């Protein structure tokens, strides 16, 4: 079901109406039923994957929790009746059993993800090594069920949290199933966290018109970003795949910038819509974007872009590895050999490369995405290593307090992220290499301009056809700048104190979308750039 479509509008209106008309005790069940309908709409046969993942995860967490709680219940008695050594052994055995159950469930969850999303890529790279018939074997070509990566990461996070004792396992299967399938976040995130989301399902939500209106405002803003920017920029970005051989450096820079804008408008616009939808039910989703193109460096960028993914990787991959004993031993070894600074930066830097490789893999099973991740990791590691040197230069010049330096840093970050995206966006690695070469050595300004004359690729080009992009980008920039300058006072709060201005802006927003928006393309959920993960 497409998010920007009449079908979704009717579906959402019906669910919202029933949500507040039916007794409040039915609210979570209604949301579960709606989520299942939404999921079935995307492809009935794919529900098996999420059903298996939800059932296995639910049962394993409960079983592992029972193993440890049963042990805890008898352990008081055991502790007094058994010798300390014997008691320790029994405690360790109970913990082992719990870990084994969790481990098996993790294997099932991640197994589904790996087989569907990555197996063809893995086999495609391994089989040719054997040559002959093996190299010619076709892939499985399994179709990705809706929200595969999102519900898998949600399930893995839940299992790890339960095994860490962060919260007890959920007993109510309906509530757990709703956490896994909740339709606003299943399309393109944010990646859910059980302790943040599930408690909100248990609370009855009364009709709060202000909150619902806030939700609708967010939906409107999301539609604005997608219809004005993402949809209008799509043809310019798509052309990169078709006519890349004839493009000069300047054209590649322009198209890659368009891609950066389109990706942000599409992804953050989609998130705005689902966050607004969820807000109407009184359920807050996690923030997923914080004005990423205002970031001062790449680390800052990843703290602002797809925040739920960065946070998830930090909590379940980075910190567990960085705080492990093996890691501490490695750091100590480096400290002895090479001093404090190397011991502090090199191990975490290497870990960052691993982490960003995973970020690349998240985006897709191909070498372009993997290299995109590796590039980001390497740049972050290098800049961390060089930071003391940079500081020595910046401090005497008092650069950090200069506005021009602040602006330069954001522009530099945008250029760096654009350059890393070339490898994942170009149609193949050789094309990416040719893109890089042209971007730095042959700007092709003259050639680019001549394409606009008769007979050229852009003959008859009308700058006015990009008017929606200029309007959309100006509005997005103005809103983002206001929020960036005053992050503690969100625009929502500022406008709530000026109701006339707010209504005028809302009317203007609708009018602009109606007049300039690129719509009617049939925005299917699967059309979202970030969907299908």
């Amino acid at each position, binding site marked *: 079901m497409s998010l920007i479509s009449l079908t979704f509008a009717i579906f959402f209106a019906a669910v919202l109406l029933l949500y507040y008309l039916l007794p409040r005790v039915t609210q979570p069940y209604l949301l579960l039923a709606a989520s299942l309908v939404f999921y079935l709409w995307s492809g009935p046969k794919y529900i098996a994957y999420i059903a298996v993942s939800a059932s296995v995860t639910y049962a394993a967490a409960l079983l592992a929790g029972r193993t440890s709680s049963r042990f805890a219940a008898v352990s008081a008695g055991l502790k007094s009746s058994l010798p300390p050594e014997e008691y320790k052994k029994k405690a360790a055995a109970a913990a082992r059993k719990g870990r084994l159950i969790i481990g098996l469930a993790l294997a099932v969850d991640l197994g589904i993800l790996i087989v569907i999303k990555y197996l063809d890529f893995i086999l495609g790279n391994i089989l040719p090594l054997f040559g002959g018939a093996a190299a010619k074997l076709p892939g499985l070509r399994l179709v990705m069920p809706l929200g595969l990566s999102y519900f898998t990461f949600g399930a893995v996070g839940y299992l790890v949290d339960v095994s860490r004792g962060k919260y007890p396992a959920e007993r109510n299967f309906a509530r757990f199933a709703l956490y896994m399938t909740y339709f606003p976040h299943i399309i393109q995130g944010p990646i859910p966290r059980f302790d943040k989301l599930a408690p909100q399902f248990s609370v009855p939500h009364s009709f709060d018109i202000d909150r619902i209106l806030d939700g609708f405002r967010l939906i409107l803003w999301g539609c604005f970003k997608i219809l004005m920017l993402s949809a209008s920029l799509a043809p310019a970005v798509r052309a990169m795949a078709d006519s890349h051989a004839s493009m000069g450096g300047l054209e590649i820079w322009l198209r890659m910038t368009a891609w950066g804008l389109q990706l942000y408008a599409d992804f953050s616009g989609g998130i705005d819509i689902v966050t607004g939808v969820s807000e109407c039910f009184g359920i807050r989703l996690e923030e997923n974007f914080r004005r990423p193109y205002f970031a001062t460096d790449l*680390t800052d960028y990843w*703290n602002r872009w797809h925040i739920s993914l960065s946070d998830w990787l930090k909590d379940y991959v980075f*910190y567990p590895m960085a*705080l492990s004993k093996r890691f501490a031993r490695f750091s100590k070894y480096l400290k002895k050999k090479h001093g404090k600074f190397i011991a502090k*930066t090199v191990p*975490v830097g290497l870990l960052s490369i691993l982490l960003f490789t995973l970020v690349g893999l998240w985006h897709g099973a191909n070498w372009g995405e993997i290299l995109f991740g590796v590039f980001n990791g390497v740049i972050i590691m290098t800049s961390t290593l060089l930071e003391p040197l940079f500081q020595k230069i910046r401090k005497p010049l008092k650069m950090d307090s200069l506005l021009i330096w602040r602006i330069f840093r954001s522009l530099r970050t945008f250029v760096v992220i654009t350059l890393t995206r070339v490898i994942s966006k170009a149609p193949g690695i050789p094309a990416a290499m040719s893109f890089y070469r042209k971007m730095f050595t042959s700007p092709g300004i003259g050639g680019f301009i001549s394409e606009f004359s008769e007979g050229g690729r852009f003959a008859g080009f009308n700058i006015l056809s990009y008017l929606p992009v200029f309007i959309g980008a100006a509005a997005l920039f103005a809103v983002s700048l206001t929020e960036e300058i005053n992050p503690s006072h969100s625009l929502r709060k500022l406008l709530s104190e000026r109701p006339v201005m707010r209504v005028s802006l809302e009317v203007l927003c609708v009018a602009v979308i109606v007049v300039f928006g690129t719509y009617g393309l049939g925005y299917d959920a699967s059309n979202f750039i970030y969907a299908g993960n």
Partner: protein
Amino acid sequence: MTKEEIKEKVIEILGDINPDIDYTAETSLIDGGLLDSFDIVSLVGELNDAFDISITVVDLVPENFNSADAMAELVERLAG
């Protein structure tokens, strides 16, 4: 070690990581983004070594690292 002594040592370690912050007054080191994940990892390593404790992933919540006071409390709890 008294809590004050622990806090002093914690502030000394923090000063090594980033000397530009006033650790006696700051109460949102994590929520305010003053310490990043690289800082946290080296901080945990230093605290583990200095107080002979073992800070685990479960302890890595902002409440435990937002201020020098909170860190001193965490150290006291783990050492106790």
